[in-house]
């Protein structure tokens, strides 16, 4: 439980992930599903058909209408929550590093999902491969989830398109998909089209390093920049004008991402790796109706 402080865990244990489109669809859980069956909470009547259990015949309706109707009850099932974690080399950048922050963030979201009775599965993607965790259910599995997250290695280049293709077969329709990444060098448009086919309730969380928001923290003047994934080099002059231009470019890029995701009925959240988690999760994202 070293990833998250106990106080935070205690606070998160009472929370649930809020949904927009996703519905619970399997197992026995705490979320009311669209399925009807042998439950406690009455849902509706329907005409009797041969073979129906006659114990559910509603005699009051028969008395009133002279027709046979059976009573139907709502079922409480589990929600499939899939968290995709970017483990490419670019995530190691920043102080504190984005990787470290992302691990904590995924742990917190996973914990909230487990607390809400959801079924959680995490996939770490980098290059053209994806590493899946086991499916976790119930808070008692939280330590396993944290342990798995702690042992993640961040390296290689990211290729989100290939990742999405690999993920598609594992996703349930209308489940909750959380993607945590820096979204640098992502071709998001193509990927979102694919995800739409599965009617995913998408929460895209962008994690940036403080230096990426404010490059003046890196250096000033003429510098040679080296891409952490491709090792490509670029020489630029980081003067005040360039910094202003960078800021504008960054905002435009983030807005572009947001528009793209919202167009697919998704939610786009941005954060910085030095943000305090408690504030982020319990205040900002509650306000944003991500967590209850």
């Amino acid at each position: 439980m070293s990833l998250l402080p106990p106080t935070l865990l205690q606070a998160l244990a009472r929370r649930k992930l809020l949904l927009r489109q996703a519905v619970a669809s399997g197992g026995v859980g705490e979320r009311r599903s669209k399925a009807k069956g042998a439950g406690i909470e009455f849902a509706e009547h329907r005409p009797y058909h041969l073979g129906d259990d006659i114990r559910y015949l509603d005699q009051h309706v028969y008395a009133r209408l002279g027709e046979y109707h059976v009573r139907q009850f709502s079922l409480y099932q589990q929600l499939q929550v899939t968290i995709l974690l970017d483990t490419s080399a670019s995530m190691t950048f920043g102080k504190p590093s984005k990787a470290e922050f992302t691990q904590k963030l995924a742990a917190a979201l996973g914990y909230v999902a487990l607390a809400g009775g959801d079924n959680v599965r995490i996939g770490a993607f980098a290059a053209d491969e994806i590493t899946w965790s086991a499916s976790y259910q119930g808070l008692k599995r939280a330590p396993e989830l944290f342990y798995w997250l702690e042992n993640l290695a961040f390296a290689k280049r990211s290729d989100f398109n290939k990742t999405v293709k690999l993920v598609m077969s594992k996703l349930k329709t209308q489940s909750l998909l959380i993607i945590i990444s820096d979204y640098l060098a992502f071709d998001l448009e193509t990927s979102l089209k694919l995800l739409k086919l599965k009617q995913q309730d998408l929460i895209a969380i962008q994690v940036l390093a403080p230096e990426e928001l404010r490059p003046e923290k890196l250096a000033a003047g003429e510098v040679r920049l080296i891409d952490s994934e491709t090792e490509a080099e670029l020489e630029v002059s980081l003067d005040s004008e360039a910094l202003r231009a960078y800021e504008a470019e960054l905002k435009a890029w983030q807005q572009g991402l947001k528009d793209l995701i919202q167009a697919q009925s998704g939610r786009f959240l941005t954060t910085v790796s030095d943000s305090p988690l408690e504030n982020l999760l319990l205040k900002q994202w509650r306000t944003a109706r991500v967590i209850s």
Partner: protein
Amino acid sequence: MSFAQPGWLLLSLLSFVVILLHIRRRKVINVSSLELFKKLALSQKPNRAWRWPKPSWLLFLQLLAVILISLALARPELGTPFKLDHWLVILDASGSMLAKDGLEGPSRFDLAISSLKEQLKSFDNSQQLFSLIRLGAEVEVLGARLQDAQVMSLLGEVQAEAVQVGKSAWQEALSLAKSLKSADEFLHVTVLSDGAGAQVASELLAAWPELSQQVLSFGGALDNLGLADVKLTALNLAKHEWQLEGTVKAFGSSLKDKSLSLFFRPEGTQGFLAWGTLALSFKPLAEGGEAAVFASKLSLPAAGLLELRLPEDGLAWDNQRFVELKEAPKALRVLEVGPGNEALERVFLAVEGLELFKSPTLPPEQNYDLIILDRVKVAQKPQTNTLWLGGASLSTASEPLSLDEVNLTAWQTQHPLSAGIDWSTLKLTKALAIPLLAGASSLVEASGHPLIQARSTGVGREVILAFDLSQSPWTESLGFPIFMANLLRWLSPWQDALAPPALGRSCGVALVCDMRPQELYGGLALIPELAESSLAPLPSPFAPNAATPASEAWLPSATSAFYPKATGLYRLANGELLSIYAPASPESDLRQAAVALKPIQLGDGAWPMFRYLLLGLLLVLLAEMWLAGRGADRFLLRASLDAKNPLARRHWRVLILRLLTLVCCLLALLGFSLMQPQRKAKTVVILDDALDNESQTRLGSLLTPLKPSSNFIRFYPLADQPLETREAEFSAPNLSAALKMASGLLADAPESHITLVTNDVKGDLWAGLRGLDHPIDLLPLGGLAQAEVMVGPLSVASQLYQGDPFVLQGSFYSAQGGEALLRVWRDGELYHEENLELLRGYQPFQMSFRETSAQKVFYEYELIVSQDGQSLNNLNNRSGLVVAFKPKARVLIITQQPAWASVLAEALALQGIEADMVEPVDAPYGLKDLLGYDGVILANVPAIALHSVQQELLERWVHDYGGGMLILGESIVLGRGAIIRRGSSASPPSPAASPKKLLKSP
């Protein structure tokens, strides 16, 4: 301060590269992605192209490192005097070094040796190695990398010789000097010579400025007289008339006395008689100096010594010539031991000047030139030349086995004993299986068993015939007397070669002993007749082991040459006198003044800064590595090297490169020679220049990998190889000299070895390879490619007359055998053609021809063997020779019975000999009538039928002019004893030995 390798200073130009890199240097920042920054870069204006880098410790240290590296590699040394590791002296031992600048003083050579000894004393010999190359008739490494006392004893033995040393020899000596240098040592080369030699050496050394060098020149300009080309020929021996011819060369204008004095010492007397003075008329020469050609008739009354003497001057060896005159030839003494063979005796009795003795057993006194052991057992080997016949052997030896079938399988045509012999005529029914002795050459073989073998031992030649002559028809064939004549010539090779042609005899009445020392064979000690001390033969690598008896110490013929080291008159152990003097040579020209002397500078040695510079470099590199690694390049930060760091690999690479640089620097500091690895194991390749073209081609590919790390010596088995064509790194006149040179080159490399490339893997080669310090790889390249045929040298009889049948003989070598076409061309026209079945391997052949209508004296024959598939470019398949046909022999038949003699004349005509017949009364009275004939046949002519004048004329004609005479008839005819014999100095053997002396031929 001086630099040993100043070229490396140019490396400091790399400083500009360092500055350039700093100019281009930017602060390196890792970012997660360049995506946003790329858009930024597109909108930015280009930077200023040139901006000086900011001064920094890193830049300073890097510049310092570059300068230190270039300085260290340039090997600077403080101080000027050198510290000697290896002192190599090239000593000129040519004829001019024997000159004395003061008539009583020491020679230039002695002065050079004294000077060398003085300088050696001033050295701390424990610190230096010493090598000595002597430049005489050969370039000789007398000692390589010697220490202390070895040097002084070596200098005590070295001598000069009256030979010429040319520029090519100097080049060879200097190449040798360079190759004797080890990688890390300081080699200093000192050349000790006189004016002319020093001039050549200075010019050649100028091409090697990197070599520490010094030329010391001894002696000044001298005027000199020299004798050259002296020849004494007999005009009329009866009247003691001689013709003396020669040349005197004069170098210098200050010579006043240019007279040539003659002195004569009659045989058996002491001291020389003044015999007169020859007036000389000098004429200037184009090449400088002047020369006088003299020719004078002399009357010398008796046998003795004639001395030609020029006035005493600086160079003694070209002032004197000795010529020995003999009244009579020294007879060859031959002893036949055993039952005897009539045919053999007949042959020896026919030889002029030979005394044949016979004894049933081997007498204790063995004062013979040749002992023939015929089917006898002897207790010990004779200590002279020996001919073993019919299974004769030592009594301790076991009986050899008999051969059931004797079919000749191979023979050798190139051996001196085979000259002019058609071995195919040797028909034998029985023979003995005698193994080939060590060092022996097999002349004729039957199924691998030598039938005739010959070798040279420490006491003379040894020939073994593995068959009984008395049971062989070979004695009746022409080859037998030729073989015996060859044998006698082989025993004393110089006599026949250099006898005055006017006398026409193998060992003339008056023998002018002008001999080539190379023709001596081993075992004969040369004792200078008129010298103060005796000379011993120089040790050679082929000297017999002390524990081996001289008779068993076989000597390879090619290496048994003896080189007298001083001119003068010598007496051989067998009593022969030899006059040994140097040929005419430019060494007599001493007008070249000595060049200025340069004293050897010795000191404690320069202070090498290499190590200190390296130490400084190491510190600088460490500091730079720390600064760079903890600073901008970050490769010394743990986080940068962590696997999680995306640039960890880059940082590791930089770190490893820096560490490698430090390790290299440290190794260099500790003395590991990375730039110039020192070879401990060297290879010297000795190449046989007599390799055929095929082998030379194959050799090229084999030696290519050896070339970078080997020395090459080419040796010339053919003595007449022109010096100008020698292109190898080193060259040697023969294998012995090449091996000596190789030993010198490998003196400091005990693990090294010699590779000998030769196809001549038979005969004497093995002897030369014994007792060497270094292992030898023998690389024979023999064999021809498939479908190639090689035709060996052709030979015919040494003397042919027009109309004589003659046998053309030689050998083929075929790699695969098969059918071939043989063509003989004569003077460019097809002469003979036949199909041939070639066997695989060597195959002897002989073909009989007869020039019945020979119009010319010389004919050129070429034999070509063609086989399908052979290369057109290969010239191995042909061989040729020029045959000289003397005019038809003419004989004069003196007879009283013309009808009977006409039958003889017709028989002679069938053999191509013209015959004239005359009655005794018409026989010539004057010499001029006889000179047109090659021989005279006295057919049934009694002595009384010829006038005494005619008889004396015939005697003189045979005796003095070499005319042939055949006497036919019965007891009444002019016969043995009827003509007075003259001039035999031979004395009969002592009665105690009592061998029976056989009668000699007239």
